[in-house]
């Protein structure tokens, strides 16, 4: 089978047993890889009562057919499990060479269950797997642990590890590969921490088999040429993702002060342009990618403490959540906060909005310094915020409450603070105001992992006329349609959710794929056909995306998440009225948000049954 390692590794940390099993071609073609492949195991095997931080939770690290293939946007990997943050489906995706290493070590996916009785790490090399002692790594930051692992492993090894936040089961702890390539959302670092798994390390030994190198090269060349015309990618190349901050500020789409405002004059100080003026930024990119969207940050004048350049510079979401949402428009704060988040292994979005919620609670008198360990968490207070980051990572005092995530923290504090918590399914909102992107707000409400801007389509793309014909986005309908309009948005979100899930199956960088970049479903299908030798059309690709999306829904239903959880915080919910019912109907779900049997049959998922249990 071309494009795949052809094997899956099962790890039982309770017994130390390691076993491999073949990846059969039927499963690969139905679910492709990445998140879809992970979903095929989770939907089949995860018990309804599995504690996200317990032995029964199934953690899947997965790759897809694109990893290791010579095409742009392939340098990625995914992690999936029951999320300790949402209580339901959890996934996160990261860039970097770890994905190619995992597959090149001989495994399309690693499935981890059980709990280790002492810290361990998993070493994958040449088709072999080994659990090794990690007692000497426990308690160490991401960079320290990564350094130590690289020193004891052969050249070429890649590391994905957790920091102290994951060890302490902070519910939004991340998994960090290559120092700064972060699988951040859903708290999957806490799943590793609970299992006693400090790191997974892999060395790529085997070349990835590709079916038709000539066809792949031709499609890749076409892909790269198209990237030159993308305004988004030009922007990212110039300033990285923070290059979008000025535009978002001008259009009123930033989450300023916990989404109280959409814009602030001070935000100019943390724009991509301002970061480039303030720091020495060096562009970095993934293998084979011409975009160079990432930044290494060096500063000779660290105001708030050391900034290790290996942790990278803050990206757009980090500027939005730790900066704008907290009213802290200070590039030096963002450099330090981003480095701390990556050192401890924390998702910056959930971190930023937990702090922003506490700041708004302070402003409204709901919280006082007596509640918050003597720190006055005021809007714009960089030093108080940084002190609280340290306390969250260590679960100290009030930090232990924020470590539960903004949704749980608000329910614990009560006194009206629940209305100030900006989350869906306990996953904090990314830096895109749903009042300015009404259709994306529907995706925030319905996405399986909670508020997510990487699924569905941004209303700004539709309004600008950036459309993909394969998704049925008729220019006459969508071009010029206001980003705040409701009509036709549910259909666009359904189609785009299926497509974005397909990219997560491949795994293909979303920046290069519609609607961020020029990679269309048609082009992706050509790339997949060239890699695998299958004759795959874009309809089959989108169907696989729909399967992936639906399996995530089934997992959520099994975990007790359903219609009552498909909602936005009232502060930003202006446009959702009526859209949810339309969305369910388009998806083939009943009025309570459960996929109908005929829908599962159409998707070829009869064997996964309804979400009520298996």
């Amino acid at each position: 089978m071309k494009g795949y390692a052809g094997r899956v590794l099962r790890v039982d940390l309770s017994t130390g047993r390691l076993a491999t099993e073949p990846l059969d071609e039927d499963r690969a073609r139905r679910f492709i890889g990445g998140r879809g492949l992970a979903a095929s195991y989770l939907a089949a095997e995860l018990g309804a009562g599995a504690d996200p931080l317990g032995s029964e939770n199934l953690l899947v690290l997965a790759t897809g057919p694109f990893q290791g293939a010579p095409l742009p946007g392939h340098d990625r990997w995914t992690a999936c499990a029951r999320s300790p943050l949402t209580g339901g489906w959890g996934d996160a995706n990261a860039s970097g060479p770890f994905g190619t290493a995992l597959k090149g070590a001989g495994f399309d996916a690693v499935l981890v269950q059980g709990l280790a009785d002492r810290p361990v790490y998993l070493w994958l090399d040449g088709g072999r797997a080994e659990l090794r002692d990690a007692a000497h790594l426990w308690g160490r930051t991401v960079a320290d642990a990564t350094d130590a692992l690289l020193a004891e492993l052969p050249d070429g090894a890649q590391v994905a590890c957790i920091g102290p936040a994951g060890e302490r089961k902070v519910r939004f702890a991340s998994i960090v590969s290559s120092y700064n390539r972060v699988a951040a959302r859903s708290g999957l670092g806490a799943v590793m921490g609970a299992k006693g798994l400090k790191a997974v390390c892999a060395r790529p030994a085997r070349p990835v088999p590709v079916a038709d190198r000539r066809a792949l090269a031709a499609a890749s060349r076409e892909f790269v040429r198209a990237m030159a015309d993308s305004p988004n990618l030009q922007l990212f190349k110039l300033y990285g993702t923070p290059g979008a901050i000025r535009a978002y500020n001008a259009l009123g789409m930033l989450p300023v002060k916990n989404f109280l405002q959409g814009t602030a004059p001070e935000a100019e100080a943390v724009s991509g342009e301002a970061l480039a003026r303030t720091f020495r930024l060096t562009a970095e990119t993934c293998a084979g990618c011409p975009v160079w969207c990432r930044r290494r940050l060096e500063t000779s004048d660290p105001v708030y403490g050391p900034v290790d350049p290996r942790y990278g510079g803050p990206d757009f979401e980090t500027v939005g959540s730790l900066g704008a949402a907290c009213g802290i428009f200070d590039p030096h704060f963002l450099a330090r906060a981003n480095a701390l988040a990556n050192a401890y292994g924390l998702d910056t979005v959930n971190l930023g909005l937990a702090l922003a919620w506490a700041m708004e609670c302070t402003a409204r008198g709901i919280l006082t310094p007596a509640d918050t360990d003597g720190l006055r968490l005021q809007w714009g207070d960089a030093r108080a915020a940084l002190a609280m980051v340290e306390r969250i990572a260590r679960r100290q005092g009030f930090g232990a409450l924020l470590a539960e995530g903004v949704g749980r923290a608000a329910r614990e504090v009560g006194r009206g603070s629940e209305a100030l918590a900006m989350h869906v399914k306990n996953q904090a909102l990314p830096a895109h105001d749903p009042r300015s992107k009404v259709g994306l707000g529907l995706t925030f409400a319905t996405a399986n992992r909670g508020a997510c801007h990487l699924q569905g389509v941004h209303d700004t793309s539709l309004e600008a006329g950036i459309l993909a014909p394969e998704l049925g986005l008729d220019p006459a309908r969508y071009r010029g349609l206001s980003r705040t309009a409701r009509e036709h948005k549910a259909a666009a979100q359904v189609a785009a959710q299926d497509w974005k899930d397909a990219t997560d199956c491949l795994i293909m960088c979303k920046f290069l794929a519609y609607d961020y970049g020029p990679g269309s479903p048609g082009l992706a299908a050509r790339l997949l056909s060239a890699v695998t030798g299958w004759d795959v059309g874009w309809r089959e690709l989108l169907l696989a995306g729909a399967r992936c999306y639906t399996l995530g829904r089934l997992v959520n239903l099994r975990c007790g998440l359903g219609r009552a959880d498909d909602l936005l915080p009232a502060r930003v919910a202006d446009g959702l009225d009526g859209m949810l019912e339309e969305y369910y109907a388009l998806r083939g779900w009943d009025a309570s948000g459960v996929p109908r049997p005929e829908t599962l049959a159409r998707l070829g998922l009869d064997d996964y049954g309804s979400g009520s249990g298996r």
Partner: protein
Amino acid sequence: MVVPERTVRGGASMEKGRSEPGRASASGEGLAVTVELFAPLSDRLGASSLEVGLAAGATVGDLLRRLAANYPAFRPFWPAIGEPAYYPFLVVNGSSLSLPAGLDRGLKHGDRVGIVPPIAGGSRR
């Protein structure tokens, strides 16, 4: 009278009162607007803003066509002939203006028009 564009490098603020547009307004023969630029347009033009002189009664559409005619960087958004490939996002005096409905909106002397290239935004965590 139509006033030629002036580019302002490195800063978004305009120096009011000493520019040609001020005279244009006083003469009553035309108007001038400040165009605020966003990346990647600003980088391609090497300026954070432009002052653009237009005939009295000019519309937003006239402004975009004028820019496309004079600056190749604008042509992806508004080719010299025909429909734009993509609509940019416009912000006139701080308020968003939807396209294409807003193309007929009249401009006044001293208006500030932000032109934001199409963006999706975000990162991929």
